[in-house]
């Protein structure tokens, strides 16, 4: 399979990232929790979650990290190199929710020999914003 690369020259500040949706199921939540070795009951045990006042089990923070990484490098292609991510979790994402991921480029710059872009993203669920944050990615250039 051929993989496309997003080149730094082809990115503009203000440019929007593609909107991506994902339907979240119990399996999504539990597979993410176990893949990140997070056995906290609120991420796999519905009875427990309801006992502590939640509607259901919900996505753990590591799965959100994984979704952010995937969202950003699906956009850039595998040559895009994640440098950092940072986000605030606002409302839980439950099974049955459709998550809508949006983002935009807020800054394009060079630092030492790296060609970087800063992006902002937001993952929305029906009840509000699951998370919102920023990320920095180094991109390849056409010259190299």
């Amino acid at each position: 399979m051929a993989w496309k690369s997003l080149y730094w020259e082809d990115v503009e500040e203000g440019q929007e990232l593609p909107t991506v949706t994902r339907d979240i199921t119990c399996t999504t939540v539990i597979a993410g929790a176990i893949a990140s070795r997070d056995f906290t009951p609120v991420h796999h045990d519905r009875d427990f979650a309801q006992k502590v006042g939640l509607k259901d089990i919900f996505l753990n923070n590591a799965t959100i990290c994984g979704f952010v990484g995937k969202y950003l490098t699906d956009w850039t292609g595998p040559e895009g190199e994640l440098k950092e991510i940072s986000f605030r979790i606002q409302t839980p994402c439950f099974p049955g929710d459709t998550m809508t991921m949006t983002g935009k480029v807020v800054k394009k710059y060079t630092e030492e020999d790296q060609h970087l872009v800063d992006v902002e993203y937001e993952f929305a669920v029906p009840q509000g914003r699951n998370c919102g944050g920023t990320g920095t990615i180094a991109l390849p250039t056409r010259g190299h």
Partner: protein
Amino acid sequence: MGLEFYEELKAMVGEEGSRLVAVDEVYKPMIRHWCEAMQDGNPLYTDEEYARKSKYGDIIAPPTMLLTWTMPPLWPPREQPPHPFEQFLEKLDKAGFYGILITNVAQKYHRPLFPGDHITFTYKVTDVSPEKKTSLGNGHFVTTTFIFTNQKGETVGTQSLTVLKYRLGP
């Protein structure tokens, strides 16, 4: 809870625990399980041939997996001296702030992680807020920062996690 309690919390910020060793090395099946859960098809993580021809020369772990490599085993319990972070949370529990919720996550990636790399890490509380009113109840925001190191002593990345420790109810 008054200012005095907050001053006691502040005095505990920065206390470092002993260096901990990840249970397992970075390994390919775990990477693939992660990619399945995230539905991440990035070939650097699972396509041997693509990864070999890339600038890395080998499979790399998704950078966002950083904390995963250092999670404690479900069984048997890890034997380790009590960590200052646990004492910090205990102090909040005893004061009635039983609720806990992760509110902020930040990761920085300094170097890629390859299968076979073995992580050690330290972490400490780096910030605590005064008591704040939140929609869940009054609480303190506590930020913990992790530093991850590979077997060569190089920093591979850092992560900070902010939790709200809150008092349930009115």
